[in-house]
Structures are given as structure tokens and as C-alpha cells.
């Protein structure tokens, strides 16, 4: 009889104990999860520090290389009148956010509007005998406006006294989107392409946080496939000043 009673209570209490343990475990797990997510949230905020918004202006020297092999429409432009293998000046302005990630990685995000005037180098010449003049099948727009975004990693260089003057090597991607009208001549055979993706390399000099002088070299190409692949080379030289110092 006792053994039966013992077994009955034993089973009952064992079940209750298991249930309590399970619940405690669940509560503990959810508490840990909440704590972890809080920590993660705090950590993610701590990851990005010292964010400074700056305004910048820059001189843009640009040149584009054009491969018009894919054009089948029988149009000609005299080569010497359209080919201009030089860097031409334009300008850009915008704002950038400089910060530090995880206390050691310097980064920069920028948003800019660019007015570019580019020299144009045409890779191919064609001729139609008995005409002696060379020509191309395509004339690229050489003045256009873009919106651009860039994300750069900044490597602090051990030059000079780093607390006062800071020198950075800069690298990262950027994307340009043409917002100006594309001429009909640039839309032949699906040559029109508004988006350019760039790889950027450069150097920056931070003068005690008062201002930053920068020089970036950007090499870009069409993001989408185009019958006229264009390679856009750009040198961007400019200065940025913290927004809070200006306003």
C-alpha cells in the first residue's frame, strides 16, 4: 500500500518538478535572449561612434574611354571633332559622415551631387574609302549631372604626430546615377546607361579636426550591360568642414 502511495506521489511530484524545471529553463532562456538582444543593441550602438557630419566641395577632373563596337546604326561622327583625350574640370558638393566602427575602423559615407564635364577618348576609329577622315559610330554625352553615394574605409597612416594631423589612405566603392537628360544619340542600340559603379582610392589629410583635405581617384564603369561600355576615370580634389563648425 505504502509503496503504491509512494509511487503515486513520486510520479506526481516528479511530473510537477519536470514542469517547473522546464518552465524555469524556458524563462531563463528567454531572459538570456532578452539580455543578449539588449546587449547586441547596445553593442551595435557602441560599434559606430564619433560620427561627424561634414559638408564638402570638390573639383572633379574627368575623362571617359568609350568602346563603340556594339553600335550597328550607320551613324558617323568625325573622330577629330569628338575625340578629346584629356581630363576636363567639373565640380561636386555634398555631405559626408565620418565615424569609427568598433573603436578601430575609420569609415566615411558620403552623398553628393556632381556636375561632370569629361574628356572623351574613343577606342575605335572607322573609315569609309575614299573618304580619308576617320569617324566613330557614337558620340557620348560629355557633360552630365550625377547623384552619388560612397562608402569608404579609412586607414589611419602612422605619419607625423597622429593626434594633431591625421593622414588616411582611403578605399571603397561608390555609385553614380545620372540625373541629367540623356541625349537621343546616346540611346542608340541600347547604349544608354544611367548607373555607374566606381572603385575609389585616395588620401585624406585631417587638420586637427578643423577641416579635411582629400584627393580621390575613381575608376568607374556601367553597372548594366551596354552596347557601348564606358570607363569613367575621375580625380576628385576637395575639402570638407564639419557641419557643426559651419552652422
Amino acid at each position, binding site marked *: 500500500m505504502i509503496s503504491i502511495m509512494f509511487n503515486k506521489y513520486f510520479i506526481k511530484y516528479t511530473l510537477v518538478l519536470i514542469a517547473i524545471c522546464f518552465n524555469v529553463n524556458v524563462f531563463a532562456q528567454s531572459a538570456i535572449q532578452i539580455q543578449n538582444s539588449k546587449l547586441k543593441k547596445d553593442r551595435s*550602438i557602441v560599434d559606430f561612434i564619433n560620427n561627424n557630419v561634414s559638408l564638402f566641395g570638390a573639383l572633379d577632373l574627368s575623362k571617359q574611354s568609350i568602346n563603340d563596337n556594339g553600335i550597328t546604326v550607320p551613324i558617323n561622327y568625325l573622330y577629330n571633332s569628338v575625340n578629346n583625350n584629356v581630363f576636363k574640370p567639373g565640380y561636386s558638393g555634398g555631405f559626408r559622415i565620418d565615424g569609427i566602427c568598433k573603436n578601430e575602423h575609420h569609415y566615411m559615407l558620403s552623398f553628393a551631387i556632381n556636375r561632370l564635364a569629361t574628356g572623351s577618348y574613343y577606342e575605335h576609329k572607322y573609315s569609309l574609302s575614299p*573618304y580619308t577622315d576617320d569617324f566613330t559610330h557614337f558620340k557620348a554625352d560629355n557633360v552630365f549631372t550625377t547623384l552619388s553615394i560612397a562608402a569608404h574605409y579609412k586607414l589611419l597612416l602612422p605619419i607625423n604626430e597622429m593626434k594633431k594631423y591625421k593622414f588616411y589612405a582611403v578605399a571603397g566603392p561608390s555609385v553614380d*546615377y545620372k540625373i541629367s537628360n540623356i541625349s537621343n544619340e546616346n540611346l542608340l542600340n541600347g547604349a544608354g546607361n544611367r*548607373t555607374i559603379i566606381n572603385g575609389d582610392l585616395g588620401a585624406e589629410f585631417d587638420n586637427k579636426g578643423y577641416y579635411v583635405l582629400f584627393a580621390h581617384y575613381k575608376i568607374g564603369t556601367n553597372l548594366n550591360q551596354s552596347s557601348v561600355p564606358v570607363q569613367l576615370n575621375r580625380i576628385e580634389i576637395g575639402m570638407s568642414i564639419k557641419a557643426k563648425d559651419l552652422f
Partner: protein
Amino acid sequence: MKRLYSFIIVSILISTVSCNKEVSSTSSDVMTNMIANKTWYLDYSITGNITQNFVGQSTYFITYLKDGTTKDSDGIIGTYTINNNNGKYEIQVTAKTVNGNTTNYNHVIESVGNVKMVQSFIATGQTVKTTLYFTSK
């Protein structure tokens, strides 16, 4: 921080949405703009192996106007259109001669620009192609 994340998200959205490619269906319009409101002078005519050079001489010329009319040095007056015939661009002229006779012809546009234009055709009863080289002045 929220602003920073918003900036990143907006930036990604802009770059994603902007990935489109434009295609023009205006090849004929571009060509019309190139040849219109100019007088084109014949420099060379090549039929088979025979080349005739008219550079520096009194030569045949033709004017195409933006309103779609044409007039040439032979007194032929009419209208023209540029058509895309399976990737070959043709200039189709419907005109009348000085005597009032109707004359229609199609020339293939081999190449056209702001200064140089090349047309070709095979004359009725001929098998050899004639190519005409024009310069605008």
C-alpha cells in the same frame, strides 16, 4: 544612429531602384536630325570599279529640309522619309521632275553624320551597286 541607418537604407534603395537601362527607338529621328536643313554635295560616285570624283567641281547636290521636303540640283522636288528596313536604313523619296513626271526612289543609308553621308542603290536594270559619297556645306 537612427539617421545613419536611414541614410544607409535610403542609399541602398536609390542604388537598387536606379539600375535600369534606357533604350531609344529614335534612330530614324537622330538620322533625320543629321541630314535635315543641309545641302549635300556629291563628292564621289562609285559604280563597280568605276570611281567618279567631283571634288572641287560643279556637282550634283540635294537638300533635305526638316519639314520632310527635298529638292535637288536636277530640279526634282518632293518629300522624303527615313525607314528602318530590317536593320537597313533607307531614305525613300517621292518627288516630281521638272517635267512633272513622278519619280520615286529608295537609297540605302550606308552611313550618315553631320558632315559626311554615304548612300547606295542598285539602278533599275543593273546588278552593280552604286555608292554616292556626299559632304554637307
